């Protein structure tokens, strides 16, 4: 322990000394060629791409197919044809001609980094259905979830009433944990009706989160930290909630139990309630997106610290490496926990939103219980946010 303290002290000492010595020239060097553009690196890792890096081979890419709908119909070609090539200090953006239509990757503008069509020398946006890194990651998650769920099913079929052990047992335990702990306890008799959707959501998010934490090929995609994914999931919860909403639910929205002046002639409460319908999926979208993206970003930034401090000398780089790796490891471990918690919270909130739309008649007792539950969840979420902020 004492030794560790001494080492850390030495590292910080060299670090501050070197920083003082080199801070002035570092500023002037900032935008030179070959310099690290931190923002670029971070966003490159967080956002979607047309290729996937081969594990442990930096610079080599798995080229994924590009599928676009241009002005003259469908075009399918490998992203190898258009992905920018680094030649020395220059970056070349190749133009690919597919049956008289030219495609390239936009260098600037709103479509930066995306495939565009060149019409009369101008870059025109196209409908892009490419199998990007994230799309492939979705399919990998889907396959993993399918394998997990169907392995439990197969075990049941083969072994009758016997309880599974080891891996299959763990998956089953997770299913029971979510089904009994969240779905059944909230939805009661209607649990079986909504369980397939909610379990699918939980396992998809859980698997995607964990795969996202893996650094190399089958993982590493920032899937649940992409707003398109979380929004799609939230919209599906929104659809399920409102499609299966009871009469009482709709009555509570358009004609709630409040004094008359609050709903007529000015529909204040109905407006708030209608607004509430849409804030729920928005909250779901942003919570998952922000948590997962934040986790990825922190780990990347901690890793990048090594490259930032590397400019100050070998000693600093070595010291920072040790600290960065330790911190990254710590953050990744927390992210494993967050992966589960976020999947759990998304499922739980979806369950509660669905159950709120399943109310029948004037069951004030039930409503109170729901309120208490919602309150508890709100507290949990706040605690989560505080933790994430820290």
């Amino acid at each position, binding site marked *: 322990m004492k030794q560790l303290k001494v080492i850390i002290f030495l590292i910080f000492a060299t670090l501050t000394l070197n920083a003082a010595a080199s801070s002035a020239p570092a500023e002037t060097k900032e935008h030179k060629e070959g310099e690290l553009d931190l923002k670029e690196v971070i966003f490159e890792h967080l956002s979607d791409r047309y290729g996937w890096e081969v594990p442990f081979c930096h610079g080599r890419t798995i080229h994924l197919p590009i599928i676009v709908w241009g002005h003259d119909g469908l075009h399918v070609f490998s992203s190898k044809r258009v992905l920018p090539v680094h030649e020395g200090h220059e970056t070349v953006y190749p133009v690919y001609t597919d049956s008289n239509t030219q495609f390239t990757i936009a260098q600037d503008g709103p479509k930066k980094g995306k495939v565009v069509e060149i019409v009369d020398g101008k870059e025109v946006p196209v409908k892009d259905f490419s*199998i990007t890194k994230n799309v492939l990651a979705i399919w990998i998650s889907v396959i993993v979830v*399918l394998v997990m769920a169907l392995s439990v099913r197969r075990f049941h079929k083969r072994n009758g009433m016997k309880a599974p052990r080891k891996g299959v047992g763990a998956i089953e335990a997770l299913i029971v944990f979510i089904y009994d702990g969240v779905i059944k306890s909230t939805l009661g008799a209607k649990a079986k009706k909504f369980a397939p959707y909610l379990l*699918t959501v939980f396992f998809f998010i859980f698997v995607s989160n964990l795969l996202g934490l893996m650094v190399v090929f089958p993982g590493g995609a920032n899937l649940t930290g*992409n707003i*398109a994914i979380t929004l*799609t999931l939230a919209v599906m919860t929104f659809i399920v909630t409102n499609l299966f909403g009871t009469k009482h639910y709709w009555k509570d929205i358009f004609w709630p139990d409040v004094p008359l002046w609050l709903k007529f002639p000015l529909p204040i409460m109905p407006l708030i309630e209608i607004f509430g319908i849409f804030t729920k999926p928005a909250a779901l979208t942003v919570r998952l997106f922000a948590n997962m993206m934040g986790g990825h970003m922190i780990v990347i930034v901690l890793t990048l610290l090594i490259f930032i401090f590397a400019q100050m000398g070998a000693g600093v780089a070595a010291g920072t490496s040790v600290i960065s790796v330790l911190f990254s490891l710590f953050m990744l471990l927390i992210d494993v926990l967050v992966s589960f918690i976020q999947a759990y919270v998304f499922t739980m909130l979806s369950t509660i939103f669905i159950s709120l739309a399943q109310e029948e008649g004037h069951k004030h007792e039930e409503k109170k219980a729901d309120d208490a539950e919602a309150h508890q969840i709100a507290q949990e979420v706040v605690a989560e946010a505080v933790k994430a902020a820290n």
Partner: protein
Amino acid sequence: MELFKLDFGLTFWMFIAFAILFLILWKKGWPAIINQIDARADLIDKGVEYAQNAKTQLDNARAEAEQQMAEARRQQADILREADRMKSQIIEEARQAAQKAAQKEMDQAKVAIEQARKEAEQNLRDEVSAFALDIAGKVVRNQMADDKAQARLVDQLLDEMASKN
């Protein structure tokens, strides 16, 4: 910010992939798994209930058996006590009967003795009267000779009688 832009293609694929995943698991996965888990839970519940019932029954049976044993022991003790009582009663009765019989015997003996004594008395009396007659005869015979001799004779005879008895 690039991160906050919604990518159309990604949304499209996400929807398709999730829909396929959901449909497969809805038809082939979750309901069957949940039913199986529920069925197993029921089976375990029933098993536990059955075991509890069996244990209760076993306990009851054991208690009953113990009760019966105790009852049997009690009965045994009762029977033994009864036998003991009867034994002493029989002995008592026998003794009483024996006593009665002995008494009877004794009474008979007494009666016989009494009779014998009476007979002996009678005999004695007969003999005494015979002696008296004898003596009276001798007295009568000696009367004529001497009064004094007569009296002496009577005394002598009486002394003889007294020494005889």
